[in-house]
């Protein structure tokens, strides 16, 4: 063995004398990537760097009754919503954009009194009526 290796070897292998609790090697995506267990590989894990993670969302409106979102928006469980995702909806009529948008923001405010991050806005026609939607995460 050449002498030049002795110093780094000593340094690396004496970095810590404490015992470290370790995860099994196979728990990592990078290890499972080289296997045919696609099921395990594609199972979400608490490691790796998440670029995008879908959070379960909760509608602030009642689609079944098609009630007025201005009055139907979730009136309960407005506290402790931090981190939760909601989808708000309001009817859209020509020339009434500001009314519809205000209705969406009213729902955001009611569900996220501490503020929110708006994730997406879209419009959808249910065959009779055009609706504006917004998904948002409570701060």
């Amino acid at each position, binding site marked *: 063995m050449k002498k030049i290796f002795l110093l780094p070897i000593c340094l*690396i292998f004496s970095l810590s004398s404490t*015992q*470290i609790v*370790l995860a099994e090697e196979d728990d990592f*995506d*990078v290890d499972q*990537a080289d296997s045919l267990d696609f099921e395990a590989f*594609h199972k*979400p894990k608490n490691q790796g760097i998440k*670029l995008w993670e879908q959070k379960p969302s909760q509608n602030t409106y009642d689609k079944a009754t098609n009630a007025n979102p201005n009055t139907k928006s979730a009136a309960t469980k407005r506290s402790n919503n931090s981190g939760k995702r909601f989808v708000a909806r309001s009817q859209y009529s020509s020339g009434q954009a500001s009314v519809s948008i205000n209705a969406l923001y009213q729902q955001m405010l009611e569900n996220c009194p501490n503020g929110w991050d708006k994730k997406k806005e879209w419009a959808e026609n249910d065959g009779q009526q055009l609706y504006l939607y917004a998904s948002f995460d409570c701060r």
Partner: protein
Amino acid sequence: MKRKLLPLLIAGVTASGFAAADVTVYGKANLSLNSNDMEGVTDTDDNYTLNSNASRFGIKGGYSLGKDTDLVAIFKMEYEVGVDDGDVKGSELSQRNIYGGIQGNFGTLIAGKHDTPTKLAQGKVDRFNDLKLGDIKNVLEGENRESNTIMYTTPKMNGFSATIAIMPGEETGDDSNDGIADHRSAMVQYKTGDLRLALSNDSDVDGADLTRAVAEYKIGDLKLGALVQQAEDSEDSDIEQDGYVVSAEYKLAANWKLKAQYASSEDEDGSTTTAETTQMAIGVDRKLGKKAKAYAYYAQVEDDVTDLEDSTFAIGLEVKF
């Protein structure tokens, strides 16, 4: 990761109209400082080298195809990075396993560029995988990553699972490989408790027909592995290679592992032995937390026909993310 990627990915997700799963970046940097003494089996250098040992990053993800189905569209794109000098086979990045596919109760169907089932049948028998002179590819045929692969893996059933891959030849003209399954690789695996058994077969993959059998067993802190295989040229059955690998890994303490491996192969053309290669490797791993380890190893590859021997001693560091 460039900032532009995130909005692009989000746009891709939201455009689907279905609930999204997640997109994850993973990978590792694996670097070693090697002291090489090469006589010509694999190289002729007698020097020190800083090596990037298949350092890589990958992006994987999946999207549910709807509330009323268990089907998930999946993808993976993995690239090798030359952490030592920025060069991987003449490029900044080199493709590793890359695919798109569908996953559900029926199993997993993917298409892309991927390691063959035979290559992955070895599991963890190759304890010096990706390391200079330590990887079993220095001794054995069958370590192939093939383009244009369509691969199906069954769900696990009472410990059994199977994978079959086909690769169109994509040639044209008379007597050419122009079919849908000109090249094939398949594997059957049984796993229960601490035992794993696998049997695989290649047909005209990288010019070889090959059968590989693998066994792995864990007894307490000791892991054992064995692999035997027979290969022959797809077009000339006189050209053959027989080989085997045995390996062991022992957990000395919570953070220490000792590893050893021996492999051998014999190449023949008719009754003439054209190469007789043996590999020996020993090493030690020292965990440095959950996602990093330091290691040292010594490996040598010897050709008994020419009596030449290559060897390397290295210290290295691996960091996962």
